[in-house]
């Protein structure tokens, strides 16, 4: 174990290499290679796309108010839910969780000055807004209409916007893959001296489990999208059965990515919950190693279950069985985490800050969604529920009740670190309760709707479902109001929020030991780490942080050597 003096003599290695501070506005805030700025850029862009995709959702709810004839015709409705789904998955949740929070938080948590490849990081970000605009621009030439899953043959016959969709998602996929490589190398190589894997914060473990998914799964999607694009534009037969292709092939290729994608969308949120719970219960997280290893287990198992989206596609029963079993198995590491979190609460001195409220709400709604997932893993049940509103309910419980609640929890937790100001707790409380009530009102009844036979992706439906649909639409307005309150909170607090010190929550991970917002160089001296951060009974397990909150000048840029 190195002492601080030894660490100074040998330096922090790569983690100690400092680039000179950018001077111009453009290099500081637009084309920045600083992971913190890039993280904020992802967050802002992600929330902009969230508003756009959310508006599409409200059009969906408006259409669902009336069983026959609504606000838009069927073709437009198809376009709307297709872009809504695609945008939420690829332009909102994944960028926010990986590019946004991943970029901003975890390099600070491992005591690094930046990620391994800062220029690549900037490239990853700057691919994202144009790709997103490309997706929304597809409305101008006939947006995709076959859902976010774009199954052939329908996607083969789709309007020009479907090809735009292929190109846009391909680009976003490139951005994701590069981010995955960047994060993986950063975590493997740039941790502070003394920070072994079992001394890493759990948010870093979460990003560590997600990075290989980003890297490997996303490239598989790129292959599928390229094939679809080539078939649509050049007539190259992969999926058209009249030319020898197979529509089921698309499903295999697509879901081989898209199932790991849902784990990309939840693992970072799990990591956030693991950070928030100890801080607001003043207790060590229960089962640190279990949570860490189950993240890795979920990532690995996530590659083996894709065909559970294809139980109605004519797969042979001998093929369906292992996928069913593996899907059930994946519930085990997830359950281990849930139990660990709940046990963390036990006997703790809980502070019900807004972040904590969202985190506890996450446990409730995500667990609910996870349980419906276990229902769906059983082939006989899935044969009945596939393509119905039961699936819509399940996916929104895990993605909104899970990922989005995690994002909101993370925003309320890390906003002081990012901006130097506190969000209003009062507005936050209103946000949480309105959101929680609105969310459950919108999506809970969908379970019954689906089981009673309402299919998904339909612009008109059987009038027996009209009452419940109208209820859901009203509830979605409550959810929208909650989100508007959230945005108002953010914008107002940026100007008028109470100034936050370095550590308003009294947390123990490294990002809270430096000023808010951090200097561009993050740490004056790279600290040395002696233990995992969650043991509230002990003093902080770091040395070398004495200077961080003083006015002393920052470190000077080192002369670089390269080639």
């Amino acid at each position, binding site marked *: 174990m190195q002492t601080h003096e030894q660490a100074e003599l*040998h*330096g922090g*290695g*790569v983690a100690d*290499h400092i680039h000179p501070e950018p001077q111009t506005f453009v290099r500081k805030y637009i084309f920045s290679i600083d992971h913190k700025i890039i993280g904020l850029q992802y967050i802002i862009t992600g929330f902009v796309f969230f508003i756009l995709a959310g508006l599409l959702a409200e059009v969906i709810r408006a259409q669902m108010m009336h069983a026959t004839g609504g606000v838009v015709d069927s073709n437009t409705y198809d376009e709307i839910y297709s872009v809504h789904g695609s945008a939420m998955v690829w332009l909102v949740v994944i960028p926010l969780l990986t590019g946004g929070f991943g970029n901003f938080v975890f390099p600070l948590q491992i005591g690094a000055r930046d990620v*391994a*490849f800062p220029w*690549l990081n900037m490239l990853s970000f700057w691919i994202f807004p144009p790709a997103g605009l490309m997706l929304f621009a597809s409305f101008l030439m006939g947006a995709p209409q076959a859902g976010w899953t774009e199954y052939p043959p329908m996607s083969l016959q789709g309007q020009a916007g479907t090809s735009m969709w292929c190109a846009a998602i391909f680009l976003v996929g490139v951005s994701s*893959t590069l981010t*995955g*490589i*960047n994060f*993986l*190398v950063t975590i*493997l*190589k*740039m941790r502070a001296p003394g920070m*072994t894997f079992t001394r890493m914060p759990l948010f870093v473990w979460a990003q560590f489990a997600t990075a290989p998914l980003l*890297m*490997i799964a*996303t*490239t*598989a999607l*790129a*292959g*599928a999208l390229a*094939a679809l694009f*080539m*078939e649509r534009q*050049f*007539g*190259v*037969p*992969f999926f058209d059965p009249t*030319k*020898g*292709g*197979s529509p089921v*092939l698309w499903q*295999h*290729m697509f879901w*081989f990515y898209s199932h790991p994608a849902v784990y990309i969308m939840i693992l970072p949120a799990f990591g956030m919950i693991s950070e928030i719970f100890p801080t607001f219960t003043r207790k060590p997280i229960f089962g640190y190693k279990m949570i860490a290893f189950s993240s890795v287990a979920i990532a690995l198992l996530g590659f083996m279950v894709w065909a559970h989206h294809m139980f109605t596609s004519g797969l042979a029963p001998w093929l369906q069985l292992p996928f069913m079993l593996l899907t059930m198995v994946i519930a085990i590491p997830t359950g281990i985490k849930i139990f660990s979190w709940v046990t963390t609460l036990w006997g703790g001195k809980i502070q019900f800050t807004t972040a904590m409220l969202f985190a506890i709400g996450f446990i409730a709604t995500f667990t609910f969604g996870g349980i419906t997932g276990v229902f769906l893993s059983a082939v006989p049940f899935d044969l009945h529920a596939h393509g119905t509103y039961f699936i819509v309910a399940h996916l929104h419980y895990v993605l909104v009740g899970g990922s989005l609640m995690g994002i909101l929890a993370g925003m309320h937790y890390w906003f002081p670190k990012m901006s130097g100001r506190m969000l209003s707790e009062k507005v936050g409380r209103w946000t949480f309760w309105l959101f929680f009530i609105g969310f459950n009102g919108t999506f809970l009844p969908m379970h019954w709707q689906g089981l009673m036979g309402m299919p998904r992706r339909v612009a008109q439906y059987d009038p027996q479902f009209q009452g419940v649909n109208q209820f859901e639409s009203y509830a979605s307005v409550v959810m929208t109001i909650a989100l508007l309150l959230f945005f108002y909170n953010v914008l107002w607090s940026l100007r008028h929020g109470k100034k936050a010190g370095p550590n308003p929550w009294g947390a123990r991970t490294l990002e809270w030991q430096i000023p808010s917002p951090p200097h561009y160089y993050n740490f004056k001296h790279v600290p040395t780490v002696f233990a995992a951060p969650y043991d509230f009974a002990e003093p902080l397990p770091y040395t070398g942080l004495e200077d961080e909150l003083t006015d002393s000048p920052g470190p000077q840029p*080192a002369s670089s*050597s*390269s*080639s």
Partner: protein
Amino acid sequence: MAVASIAQHDEHQGVDRLYAETRDLRLQGFLLFLVSDIVLFSSFIFAYLYLRNSGQGFPPPGIGRLDVAFAAYNSMVLFGSGCTMHYALENWKHGNFNKYAGCLIATIVLGLMFLGGQGYEYHSLIVNDHVTWSGSGIFGASFFTLTGMHGFHVFVGVCYLSILLLQSVHGVYTKQKFFGLTAGTLYWHFVDVIWVVLFSIFYLI
């Protein structure tokens, strides 16, 4: 930890530690990039094997057989370039600039010959056998897509190696600091390995 041991090893050889660690980062990043590229090829290889397995006889009746002999010859050209590339790097590490340059030029020439061979084969398939990318069912689709992707990677590799040659002539790399050359060699071997797989699944089985 791994960083420390590699750094110590290099310090032993007079390389400064910071360089050793940045090189380590870039090496790992580059290897991960190659892994993701393997996944890209794998997804198309899966598609090809899946489609071929859907039972239509392969190649479908009416389409000529692929020219295995020519492909075997062309493979030798590519594998040969893998050998010359290996020796280029070895020569660089031992400080023999002239032999290094000779081997690197040989690699580039062999790479171009491989591309020429692919071009000849494509021409023969399209003009003589009437096998096209879009008009020959899944055979044309998978063959041209996969070998085309591979050929594109070879082309990028040839460009990359040419740039490395120019850079090394201009003294960008030293006997201690030559990560670009390492990366180029790894990429070239990767292209070779992909070809082993493609050759086996298209021409041999």
